[in-house]
């Protein structure tokens, strides 16, 4: 799994006589420590984004929200679709760059999610709607239904949705970035 690889890399890279970086998922961490780590990630992301917005001469306020297992940085009041791009490709690129910038500094996996004017939140709502349709279809036909390719976070949301529904189960298939959730009858 890619994530495990990245974690191992980060641990090995964490030399300099310091303790190896601990991943956010480490069960020995207190909620406060976890919060501090997410704060740190959000700060790095916000610094990176502010510099980038400056260079692009784009306005924008950054709203940071630290949740239980991730930090969300929403760029608001942008007044331009430039950061979203066609079907969200630029936003996707922005997310990848932030992930890399955060990981380089913290040497652990990034848990920052970037959004622009709530675009991804709205997109996620659409994906949930389609997932509900798929669930209904699976129940009727008894045949598995493949959802469209999604990123890891979106897939997790779909799995959560399926798990809350009786009579269906879900799995993932394919490789990134074409990895997708499959909804099938629960037997």
């Amino acid at each position, binding site marked *: 799994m890619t994530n495990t690889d990245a974690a191992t890399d980060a641990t090995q890279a964490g030399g300099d006589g310091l303790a190896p970086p601990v991943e956010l998922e480490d069960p020995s961490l207190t909620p406060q420590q976890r919060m501090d780590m997410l704060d740190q990630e959000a700060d790095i992301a916000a610094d990176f984004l502010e510099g980038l917005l400056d260079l692009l001469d784009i306005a924008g306020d950054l709203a940071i929200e630290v949740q239980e297992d991730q930090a969300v940085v929403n760029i608001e009041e942008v007044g331009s679709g430039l950061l979203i791009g066609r079907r969200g490709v630029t936003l996707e690129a922005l997310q990848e760059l932030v992930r*890399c910038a955060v990981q380089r500094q913290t040497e652990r996996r990034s848990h920052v999610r970037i959004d622009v004017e709530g675009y991804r939140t709205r997109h996620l709502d659409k994906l949930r709607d389609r997932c509900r349709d798929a669930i209904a279809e699976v129940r009727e036909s008894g045949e598995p239904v493949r959802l469209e390719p999604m990123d890891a976070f979106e897939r997790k949301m779909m799995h959560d949705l399926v798990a809350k529904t009786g009579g269906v189960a879900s799995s993932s298939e394919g490789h990134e970035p074409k990895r997708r959730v499959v909804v099938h009858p629960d037997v």
Partner: protein
Amino acid sequence: MGAEEASGVMTTEVLTYIAKALVDHPEDVAVEAVEDDGETVLELRVHPDDMGKVIGKRGRTAKAIRTMVKAAATREGSAATVEIVE
């Protein structure tokens, strides 16, 4: 200000900024704008140890860099492509 003059300023700055944020040796990041058949090619050079950082798994990071630079080019009304040079 002519189109040629405008082309590449924002894109070069954006590319340099992004690259520096991703590598362990920011002082070794260099971007050079080269004209090729009327199109600007931004040549990105980084420290040899940082090549993996700007390319990423299956070229994922390089793709993201290109997409972001393309957005910057749109913003300034220029066209630029990125080439990562070893």
